[in-house]
């Protein structure tokens, strides 16, 4: 059984004339990491909101872990689908950081919520702030808190909308490791992002959205090096892919240190 299944999905917002999703068909397996890219207004967030039933398709079918989203409430689906939206201020409301994490845990009747909250806060480096108001944290910490509070109830699918916005290099690395280990536990991660470098390093399956349709679906190496697709979706070639193209390398490096190693090898310089 697949984790997520979109079958000829059409969706139109009542305030708009054009469809936001047009005949979207895609199947995402358990444990898969999928990057969703495309220009603003391409339908990425609309796609994400269908996964936990916040939006229901006008036409077509959305199945999450085998369940038709039309037959399920948002709360029931959210037990299995954790969504973290772009703006942390749309989510944070509790008096303390600890209570913010506990909110979801209590809603979903998770056992030992206090212990779980502490563990998650520790994992995200936020334990020292547990008694502080969430709004007193920095932008990056607020974002991490939002991710921590969704991961806390251990959903099977995680949807992250622009997770790298406001994150420094170290936090991005931590996030990358978290998503990889998440996937290794057989869980699915969907990342809606404009951060091409981050997606390049993560090496996920890529869905390119343009004007409500899926323009391309494939491995990051293939999609992100196809100039026609990148142009159509107003995307930029990741820097490492561009470097590899200019140097004529067949297999582009995934990280800057990998690129540096290869250059040193070619030049015969000591590492």
């Amino acid at each position: 059984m697949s984790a997520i299944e979109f079958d000829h999905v059409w969706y139109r917002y009542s305030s708009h004339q054009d469809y936001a999703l047009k005949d979207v068909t895609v199947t995402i397996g358990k444990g898969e990491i999928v990057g969703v890219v495309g220009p603003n207004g391409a339908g990425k967030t609309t796609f994400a909101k269908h996964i936990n039933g916040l939006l229901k398709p006008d036409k077509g079918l959305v199945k999450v872990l085998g369940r038709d989203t039309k037959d399920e409430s948002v709360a029931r689906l959210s037990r299995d689908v954790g969504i973290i939206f772009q703006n942390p201020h749309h989510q944070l409301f509790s008096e303390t950081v600890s209570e913010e994490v506990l909110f979801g845990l209590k809603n979903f009747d998770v056992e030992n919520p206090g212990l779980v909250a502490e563990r998650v806060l520790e994992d995200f480096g936020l334990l020292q702030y547990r008694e502080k108001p969430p709004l007193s944290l920095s932008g990056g910490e607020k974002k991490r808190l939002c991710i921590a509070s969704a991961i806390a109830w251990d959903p099977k699918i995680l949807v992250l909308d622009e997770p790298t916005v406001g994150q420094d290099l170290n936090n991005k690395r931590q996030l990358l490791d978290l998503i990889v280990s998440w996937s290794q536990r057989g869980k699915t991660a969907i990342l809606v992002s404009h951060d091409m470098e981050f997606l390049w390093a993560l090496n996920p399956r890529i869905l390119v959205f343009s004007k409500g349709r899926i323009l391309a679906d494939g491995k990051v190496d293939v999609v992100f090096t196809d100039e026609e697709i990148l142009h159509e979706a107003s995307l930029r070639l990741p820097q490492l892919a561009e470097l590899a193209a200019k140097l004529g390398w067949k297999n582009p490096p995934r990280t800057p240190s990998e690129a540096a190693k290869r250059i040193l090898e070619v030049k015969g310089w000591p590492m």
Partner: protein
Amino acid sequence: MDPRCRLLIALMLFAFSLAFLDLPKVVLVLALVILAGTLSKILRRLAKLQILTGILVAFILVINITIGYSVIYSLTLSLRFLSIVSSTSVFFLTTSPDELEQVLKWLRAPRDVVFAFTTAVRFVPVLMLDLSQIIAAQRSRGLEFEKGNPITRLRKLSPILVPMIVTALLRSNDLAEAIEVRGYGVSKRPTSIYELKFSKYDWSCIVIVVLATAALTFLLIY
């Protein structure tokens, strides 16, 4: 049409909605409001906007009948209320915040008041968008508004209200900084790109409004 003409029409309809207190005349003013809505092609939006007013209209009708007023009198009061609300809605539905700003400037309202008022109007759709995103974010964390007794449901509003207030405050702070760095308040009499000018069409509208006011005043007195 010049926004000042629209304001004049709305003020006339509003004033006579308040002034009349018998059914045929109230119905006449309401018909004029509907006519204004039809001519400005906003009738559907106007009707949508009056859904909440409709609940209050029904409430006024029921309360007045319950406390012993006649059905005709109760109906008059209810339709009068609908007419008052709709006449102001006609103006706001046909006037953009920019036009509103121009009208207020023309009325010599203080600049800060004009800016605060038009910004508040401009921010309504933005805040509505924020509200829908906040509701989506909290529902995604398992918040169910449909469940529980009235007190529990009231408590469930805090995950919505707190982010809503915080977002609005942050936005207003950002805006304050953004306008300050672009020179807001430096000049006491800033220039304007747009200037309001009456066209022949506007003048003919004013003549019609004056004639209609005279006719309705005649109806009011006799």
